[in-house]
């Protein structure tokens, strides 16, 4: 077997000349969104080194310093730049750690739903017939209940099965599982539609005539050609997963207060809103909105660039 050594252009050169980069250079909103997104992700990843305090370390928490306002409000303490929450944790540190938890769950849940959705979508599209009818009917039913509703019900069940304590201990993997189970139909539908379009093409026929097994045709031949729609919905799904996690945490079906995500921070702050401590709930809320907004804006831009139907219009 001979390998193709004289590849006309390198990957980097192809990327440099691509329409993707060209349109990115001309789109200010996309550039700003990407910048903000990178800053937020970097801040979240580097939280243990950036944060002035470790909110998980009980010895660093001073209960007497609770409910201090952020620096621009009277009565603030310069040690706590963004103020403190009701337990006396430094809000800035807690937000950085919380964004970390939210992002881990967001990306984890999307990986989970992508794995489920891509497998089911490939099977449904490639095999057709009863498998297709069954899987798509299942997806329809689940979607008609809305993903958030399914996530709430599954979350409630998990909490009832495992009990509150165990649920809190394994909250991150459980939330990944819950959101993954709730939102796979989006992927499955998208992948199935692309598979149906690809299935009739000659290269698939050629592979089949060569006697390749179905699994190889599905994953090695068809899947790479369905990647661009998968890529587009993945961005939007990350935003959705982060919102779903925040909603579940807000309802008390998500991260515990000892290990808060942005959603559970908002929830814990909400109880103190009436007493005037608006910052505990509104500052994490603002971070959450900015995070989700830039991901949605990037998703919008990607869809405009990669979708040939919109590209012409």
């Amino acid at each position: 077997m001979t390998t193709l050594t004289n590849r006309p252009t390198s990957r980097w050169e192809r990327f440099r000349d691509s329409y993707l980069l060209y349109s990115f250079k001309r789109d200010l909103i996309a550039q700003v969104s990407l910048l903000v997104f990178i800053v937020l992700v970097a801040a979240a990843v580097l939280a243990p080194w950036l944060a002035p305090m470790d909110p998980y370390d009980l010895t660093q928490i001073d209960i007497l310093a609770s409910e201090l306002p952020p620096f621009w409000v009277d009565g603030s303490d310069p040690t706590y730049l963004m103020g403190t929450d009701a337990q006396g944790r430094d809000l800035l540190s807690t937000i950085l750690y919380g964004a970390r938890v939210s992002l881990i769950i967001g990306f984890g849940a999307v990986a989970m739903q992508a794995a489920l959705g891509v497998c089911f979508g490939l099977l449904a599209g490639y095999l057709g017939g009863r498998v297709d009818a069954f899987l798509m009917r299942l997806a329809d039913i689940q979607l008609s209940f809305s993903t958030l509703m399914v996530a709430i019900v599954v979350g409630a069940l998990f909490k009832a099965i495992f009990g509150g304590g165990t649920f809190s201990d394994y909250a991150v993997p459980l939330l990944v599982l819950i959101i993954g189970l709730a939102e796979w139909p989006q992927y499955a539908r998208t992948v199935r539609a692309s598979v149906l379009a690809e299935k009739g093409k000659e290269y698939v026929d050629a592979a089949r005539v060569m006697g390749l097994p179905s699994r190889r045709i599905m994953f090695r031949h068809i899947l790479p050609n369905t990647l661009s729609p998968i890529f587009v919905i993945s961005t939007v799904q990350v935003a959705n997963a982060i919102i779903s996690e925040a909603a579940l945490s807000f309802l008390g079906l998500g991260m515990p207060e000892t290990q808060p995500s942005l959603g559970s921070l908002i929830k814990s702050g909400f109880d103190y809103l009436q007493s005037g401590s608006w910052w505990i709930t509104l500052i994490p809320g603002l971070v959450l909105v900015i995070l989700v907004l830039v991901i949605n804006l990037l998703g919008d831009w990607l869809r405009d660039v990669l979708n040939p139907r919109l590209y012409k219009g």
Partner: protein
Amino acid sequence: MIAFLIKRLFHALLVMFVISVIAFSIQDNLGDPIQQMVGQSVPESEREVLREELGLNDPFVVQYLRFAGNAAHFDFGYSYIFNEPTTQVIMRHLPATLELVAATTFLIIVLSVPIGVYSAIKPRAWLSRFFMGVSIIGISIPVFLTAIVLIQLFAIGVSWTPFPAGTGWGAWLNDLITTEGGMPAYGRGDPVPVFGTWETNFASLEGLTYLVLPAISLASIMLPLFIRLIRAEMLEVLQSDYVKFARAKGISPRRIYFLHALKNTMLPVITVGGVQIGTLVAYTILTETVFQWPGMGLMFLDAIERSDIPLIVTYLMIVGLIFVITNTLVDLIYGLINPTVKLTGKPA
């Protein structure tokens, strides 16, 4: 037509069957009625007798059939928390949720159609761009956060003075961003009884003020979706040949937009609207939690919190029934008003 109807009904029954099996397995695996009925001191042997009497040792299928039989009569047992039939509990909480949903739907229809149509007719106008920008921000704000911000602004009130108060314009700007507060944001006040357990917030002005903030919050998450959908559909319809022909014939633009184009725009909006009812119910849970609105969503969360299994199961069954009925109705209406849908029930 009859075949289509039967197929849809069969589909609806199948979905209800699946939901009831799920609901029953929850009850079967999680709820131990004996533990709820008797005290700690009752010995295991007596519990076993009681279990046998109640038929809890019967095979799964037998127990399921009994459950389904009772469910067909809307008998789901007693709620642990309220100590009354679960259906009665749900019926007491249903009006609050329905009124919230009704007020929200009203807001969505009144706002999304004109805004969506306007931004499709004039896609480049600055107002359209503004609406599109606001709607992507609206999608990115979780519903509970909108609710919290509304509470802070209009129930608690905000007074801040970032501008120099000494100057005239500074004081004016400070006044502009200061909000009074005082809007009710907790519960539903004193709703007026209509009949039975139905109490309404629509009958008095005071009752309506309680609806304002929850309804705006709930609408804020659905509105952007509908605006974007109506705009996209309308843009597509305006490109179609029959609209071009109507223009060429010299029919007034207003007549084309609102009579000819709007009709075909609303077709897909109806289907999506039907599907979104599920989302709306999920968001009522969040909205009701923030505003302590005594509806089904709040009740459901309460039931989860206190592991009231019969109430959880009843909620799932009734919400499932509502979804299935609305989805089937939407499909049927769509089939009736869109002549291109095959009504014969044969696969396309």
